[in-house]
Structures are given as structure tokens and as C-alpha cells.
């Protein structure tokens, strides 16, 4: 499984051995149109950790990401992101916090009236004080990371679904955020393209060690992430030995009927006695 080369050499925000949580959900509940989607869920994402969130359609996976970003407000409970309580923050204050977080949306959500360069550089252009040469350099680096340097002047409508997803990743990582949120990054893609996207996510995880929440309904994606690591020398994904763990902690969180029914690593997942989970992962 080949992964693209790593041209970026930026300092990783990961602090080895640090377990300080970057995201904390405490008894968070939210419902829409009378239906309870999340019912008093609690979990933590440690700094440097990658957590994959599973659940059937409509189980509130994407809602968790939107709550973490403050795009939605919970009906009850508290959410802390990078030490700040997002549930109490004004929209204006949230904009500053969101600049420290990267998000890859389910359908990419690229701005269709802007070119790939303008999409990827959106944050830098909004800052207004970044020199053009610096913007060009960082756009090239981010696009190089996702192997799409040649699309710089194209519009999103000219790209395939997989390419759009890769541009969305480039847009999310260009400012090297402290947290990355992936909302079904492989949803609607063919298996080959899905593997390319997962390879990029693993590479991002192992190179930059950014704390990440990954929502997916494809269990195999999360298993690849848990059982492989990115080899920087060969620029490839390599399988971890049996029972071995990667350098970056990887955990799983499973939702059912608005509740968290599992939160643990791959070994705990394999040993679970819960019938529903066993059926889900089989």
C-alpha cells in the first residue's frame, strides 16, 4: 500500500507521553425534532490520540464533530475543547478557537466558486497579513502532501470525489491545527480511493501526531489505521506486528441509541463480550 511522499517538515504539536485531553464531552445530550440523538454521552480525546467513532446512520457521529466545533449547541452537558468550554462561548469567540482546529467534511464542502489554491489557502487569505509568497509556498506544500500539486488552478467541479476529499484534507492541515476532525472521509468513495485517503490520514497522524476524531461507518478503515503505521523512510504504510501498537494511540468509540457503548483500544475491542459490538465488527 503506497502512500505519497512527505514534503512537509513542520514541528509536530504532539507531546510524547502527554495524556492531557484536548476534547472532553461531559454528559452531552442533543435531540432534533423530538428525537434524542445523543443521550448524556461522555468521552475524552487525549493530546496526540486518534479516536475513530462508529455507529449506524443517524446515530449522531457527525453531530459529535459539529458539537466539538461549536457549530451546534447541545441541549445539556458540557464540552471542552483545548481547555475552553465551547458550550459557553459566543459565536465570535468560537471563530478564534476554530482557527486551531481542522475539519474535513463528509462531502468535502469545498467553496465551489473558488479555485483549489483559494480553497486550500482560505484560512491564510482570511488572516490578511500573510505574504503571497508564503501563501503560495504553504499551498504547494499542503497540496504536495495530498499529491495534488497540479490541481492548484482548477475549480472543485473539475475534480473527482477522491480528489476533492484530498483537497479538503489539504485545506484542513495547511495551518497545522492542534486537532483534526474527519467526517466520513471515505464516504461514497470506491475502495481504492478510500485506501488512498486512509493512507493520507495515517500519514498525517504518524508524521504530525495531531489529535484526531474520525467518524466513519467503514470498520475496515479504522482497522487499517489501528494495524498500520506510516514508514517515513519508505513513504509507505506498513503493518504493525501482531499485538504491537503504533507510536500514536488509537482508540475506538461506538455509539448505539444515543449512548456510548464502547470506548477503548483495538485489543479491548477484540475481547469485548458485547453481542452487538461483536456482530458489528464481525
Amino acid at each position: 500500500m503506497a502512500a505519497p511522499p512527505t514534503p512537509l517538515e513542520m514541528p509536530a504539536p504532539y507531546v510524547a507521553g502527554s495524556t492531557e485531553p484536548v476534547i472532553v464531552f461531559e454528559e452531552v445530550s442533543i435531540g432534533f425534532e423530538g428525537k434524542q440523538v445523543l443521550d448524556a454521552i461522555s468521552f475524552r480525546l487525549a493530546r496526540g490520540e486518534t479516536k475513530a467513532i462508529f455507529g449506524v446512520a443517524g446515530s449522531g457521529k457527525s453531530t459529535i464533530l459539529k458539537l466539538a466545533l461549536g457549530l451546534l449547541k447541545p441541549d445539556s452537558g458540557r464540552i471542552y475543547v483545548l481547555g475552553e468550554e465551547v458550550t459557553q462561548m459566543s459565536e465570535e469567540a468560537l471563530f478564534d478557537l476554530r482557527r486551531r482546529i481542522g475539519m474535513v467534511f463528509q462531502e468535502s464542502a469545498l467553496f465551489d466558486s473558488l479555485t483549489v489554491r483559494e480553497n486550500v489557502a482560505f484560512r491564510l487569505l482570511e488572516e490578511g497579513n500573510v505574504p503571497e509568497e508564503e501563501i503560495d509556498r504553504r499551498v504547494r506544500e499542503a497540496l504536495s502532501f495530498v499529491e495534488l500539486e497540479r490541481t492548484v488552478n482548477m475549480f472543485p467541479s473539475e475534480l473527482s470525489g477522491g480528489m476533492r476529499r484530498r483537497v479538503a484534507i489539504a485545506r484542513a492541515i495547511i495551518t497545522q491545527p492542534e486537532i483534526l476532525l474527519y467526517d466520513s472521509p471515505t464516504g461514497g468513495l470506491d475502495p481504492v480511493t478510500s485506501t488512498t485517503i486512509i493512507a493520507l490520514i495515517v500519514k498525517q497522524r504518524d508524521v504530525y501526531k495531531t489529535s484526531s476524531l474520525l467518524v466513519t461507518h467503514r470498520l475496515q478503515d479504522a482497522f487499517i489505521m489501528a494495524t498500520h503505521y506510516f514508514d517515513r523512510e519508505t513513504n509507505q504504510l506498513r503493518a504493525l506486528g501482531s499485538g504491537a501498537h503504533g507510536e500514536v494511540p488509537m482508540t475506538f468509540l461506538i455509539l448505539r441509541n444515543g449512548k456510548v457503548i464502547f470506548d477503548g483500544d483495538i485489543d479491548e475491542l477484540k475481547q469485548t463480550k458485547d453481542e452487538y459490538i461483536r456482530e458489528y465488527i464481525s
Partner: protein
Amino acid sequence: MAAGDLFSGVDLISPAEFAKEKVLAIQEYALLVWRSLGNLFRHPVYWGDMLQQADLIGVGSLPIVVLTGFSIGGSLALNSANTLQRFGSLSLIGQLVAVGMVTELGPVITGLMVSGRNASGMASELGSMVVTEQIDAMRALGTDPTKKLVTPRVTSTVFMLFFLTIIADACGLAGGAAVSSLLFGMDWHQYWSSAWQALVFRDVFTGLLKPVLFGFIISTIGCYYGMSAQGGTQGVGRATTQAVVASSILIIVVDFFVTRLTMTLFGYH
């Protein structure tokens, strides 16, 4: 046929729920208006986006405004001449066209034209951005969509509608002049001097106050329906239609009240 069969597939809503929805919509609209105005005094101000919108709204609407202004002025002169001829007062045609165009038809017709073209454009553009999560993406990237998308549209529409209305008034007067001189053989100079003399401060004030209010209505309604679009492409279509209908009706209703208000202010009865 039972009542249940008759209404199957139709979502019936209780009056209380309906009222609650409307109050909520007004509240959301008021908040959007408040924020879009407040953003003018907050950093950053998107001058580039304002200029782009001004070009799109102002320059883009120029051909239809010129054409409709000229035609309406011509029609007004044609209809007025028919009546004035009976009383031997054809010389008053310039006055009628001037007052009618400047106080009423110029602002209203320009408002309705720009509403049809731009309220729909804003609602569909912003609505598409909402349903494809581009608005959420913008918020996630740390940019306020009201500041980036709504405020430039509101500012540019208000600014450009003001000048478009002046152009429509001028074209309407020119249309009236063309009809008066070509069809009724009226002296060109007589027409323009009677038109010029008929206009007083109150007429010009009313005629220039209206486009400011209409521009505000068009842009805020267009943006509100766009930003609150739901339900995929069908929802975008619905938002577009609602934006045009609501802004057109509001323009006509507000026109009546502004006319009455300025009459009271200037002591006309």
C-alpha cells in the same frame, strides 16, 4: 372518502406551532439584520467582496433597469397624454412623468427588477452553500459567514440600488420625452422644463429614500432565505421563490407607508 385519506401525505401543522415558527423566523431575520449591520463596524471589513457584489448587482442589473425605466416612462407618457389631451393640458405631460417616475415608478420598478434578479440570486447562492455544508465549512475555518457573505451583499445592494434608481428615473424621463415629442409632437424643451419645474425637494427626497429601504429589503430577505434553506436542491428552489415573493410584496407595502410618511413629514395631505 375519510378526512384521513384526503390529507394523507400532507403535513398538517397546529396554529400554535405555525405561530411559533413565524415568530422564530422574524427573530432570526432580525438577528441577521442586526449582525449584518453591526459587522460594518467590526474587523475585518470585506471591501473586495463588497466591490465584487456591487459590480454583480449594480452593473449586472443596469441593462434591465435602463430598458424597464425607459419603457415605463414611455408608457406613463402615453397613458397620461391620452387623458391630458381631453382637457387640453398636454403641456403638463412632463410634470406627470417626472413626478410619477421620481417618486413612485422609478424606485418601485427598479426595486422589483433588482429583487427578481438579485434576491433570487442571493437566496440560491447562499442556499446552495448551506445545503452543501460550505457555510458550516466557512464557520469551521474561523470565518463569520454573515460578515463575509451577508454584509457585503447588503451594503452593495443599498448603495447600488440608490444609483440604479436615479438611472431608471432618468431613463423614464427620456422615455416620456421620446413619446411626447415623437408621437404627440410636443416641444422637447417644453417637456424637460415642465418636468424639471414640477420636481420639488419632497419628491426627490421620497424618490431617493425608497431605494435605500428597498435595497435593504431585497438583500436582507434574499440572504435570510438563503441562509435558512433546508432540504437539498428542492429547499434551495423553495428559498429562491420565497425570497422573490417576500421581497416584492415588502417593497410594495413599504412603498405605501414611506409615501404616506413623507407626505406627513412635508405637510402634504
